[in-house]
């Protein structure tokens, strides 16, 4: 077989492999869409579950997920941005810096259940927050840090060095330079990375299992020390612990969860493209 034929064959195999990867993705999405779309109506989205989850809606879970997203952002965004500023603008090339970078790599690889265990031990038990929105958000926030830090660091490093030189040469201090001459141009990347990170946090179950999630609450949370229902945990619970759950409801829940995650992802991608086009330099 000559080289060209071999190439055609090889590329064909590669294409098949890619197809094998792609088809199930599309299949899964359509399958959920097809079976879940019938559940999506106003009642489903705004009413609490009834009759042991078999009827009604998933409103409290949606609200809980939103609370968790907001809370996670409140804790992870400032810390993530500040750490990235440290790494990008202040850190010298020494052992300590390498240690920080190693720590980030490791935080991003810690299994989500270990985060759950850690969050439980530290926030729920040791700091006595109890299973609460506070504990859940803090746990999710630490989990979200690596993505935010990496995105922020890249955004800061993309700002031309000449900007800093100009600002410093006009008599600005280092922080003034960062605040007025670097950070404003990095917000695009920071925002994109944050939304992406939060979309992942929204879909996580393991970290919230012992730190905040509740199977059923008769009322919406009234403070950050309350437990909360959340979409990922709700889906897990109704598909493993509720017998004879109507297909519509579980698929509908899956669809709403995917929907929220995808919308956030989409927003992040659109922002990324927007800022790339608006390139000022």
């Amino acid at each position, binding site marked *: 077989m000559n080289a060209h034929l071999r190439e055609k064959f090889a590329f064909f195999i590669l294409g098949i492999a890619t197809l094998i990867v792609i088809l199930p993705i599309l299949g899964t999405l359509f399958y959920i869409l097809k079976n879940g779309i019938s559940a999506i109506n106003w009642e489903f989205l705004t009413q609490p579950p009834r009759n042991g989850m078999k009827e009604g809606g998933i409103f409290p879970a949606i609200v809980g997920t939103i609370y968790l997203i907001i809370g996670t952002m409140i804790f992870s965004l400032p810390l993530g941005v500040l750490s990235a500023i440290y790494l990008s603008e202040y850190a*010298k*090339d020494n052992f300590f810096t390498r240690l920080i970078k190693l720590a980030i790599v490791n935080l991003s690889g810690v299994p989500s259940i270990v985060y759950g265990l850690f969050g439980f031990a530290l926030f729920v038990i040791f700091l006595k927050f109890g299973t609460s929105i506070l504990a859940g958000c803090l746990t999710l926030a630490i989990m979200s840090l690596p993505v935010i830090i990496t995105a922020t660091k890249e955004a800061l490093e993309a700002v031309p060095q*000449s*900007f*800093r*030189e*100009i*600002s*410093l*040469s*006009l*008599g*600005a*201090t280092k922080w*003034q330079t960062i605040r*007025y*001459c670097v950070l404003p*141009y990095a917000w695009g990347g920071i925002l994109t990375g944050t939304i992406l990170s939060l979309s992942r946090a929204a879909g996580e179950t393991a970290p919230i299992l012992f730190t905040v999630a509740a199977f059923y609450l008769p009322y919406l949370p009234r403070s950050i020390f309350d437990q909360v229902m959340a979409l990922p945990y709700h889906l897990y619970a109704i598909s493993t612990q509720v017998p004879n759950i109507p297909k519509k409801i579980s698929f509908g829940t899956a669809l709403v969860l995917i929907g929220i995650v995808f919308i956030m992802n989409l927003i992040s991608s659109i922002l990324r493209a927007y800022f790339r086009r608006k390139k*000022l*330099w």
Partner: protein
Amino acid sequence: MVEIIKTKNLTAYFGKKCVLKNINIEVYKNEILGVIGPANSGKTTFLKALNRLNYLNPSYHEEGEILLERENIKKIKDNVLRKKIGIIFSLPQVLPISIYDNVAYGPKIHGIRKKSMLDEIVEDALRKAYLWEEVKDRLREAATKLSGGQQQRLCIARTLAIEPQIILYDEPCSGLDPISTAKIEEAMRELKKHYTQILVTNNTKQAARISQRCAFFLMGELIEINKTSILFTSPQSRLTDDYIRGKFG
């Protein structure tokens, strides 16, 4: 002639490489001091040592003293020093904001917020840089839309806005057309009245045109410094003579 800057045995390194050797130089108030020499002779390093911009490179370190008005500049905070000594870089570097905001950036950093004051400062600076007439009707436009020569004059205005005592120029006209160059030289002549200026240039003729004294650097050493007229007609060193005549460069 009042001395304003003095360096004592200034020696500078980037890592292990020595780029300035024992520079002893005095700069007088309100003069234009030209600094000439071939590439890599340490001219830019010398310039940037004066406002400590070299330290942006983590491998830089120096020995010796630099005195500003008899005070060792090491005793002055970075940002305070750089307000007193402004710099114009060789490539026009404007921030991607409006013309007005570019010039107002410095004063705002230093605490001036009132719009009327800023307006005054911006206009004054643009006038001194011989740019006002060309941009007065479009101050809110992006600075990046200006031509190279205009951008460079904008950089001068930006520096003037912080009211420095000394202005450093690092080959400011390289890459600019003759008309822009002439305008900048004209501005420099006018600025002499109130500012001390140090001009690093590859263009010996430019140095001859506008400087009162001139220093010749070669391979990190100060070979000769004298009144421009004397340096260019009867230099003391053979090297200076050869360089000015274009025998090397």
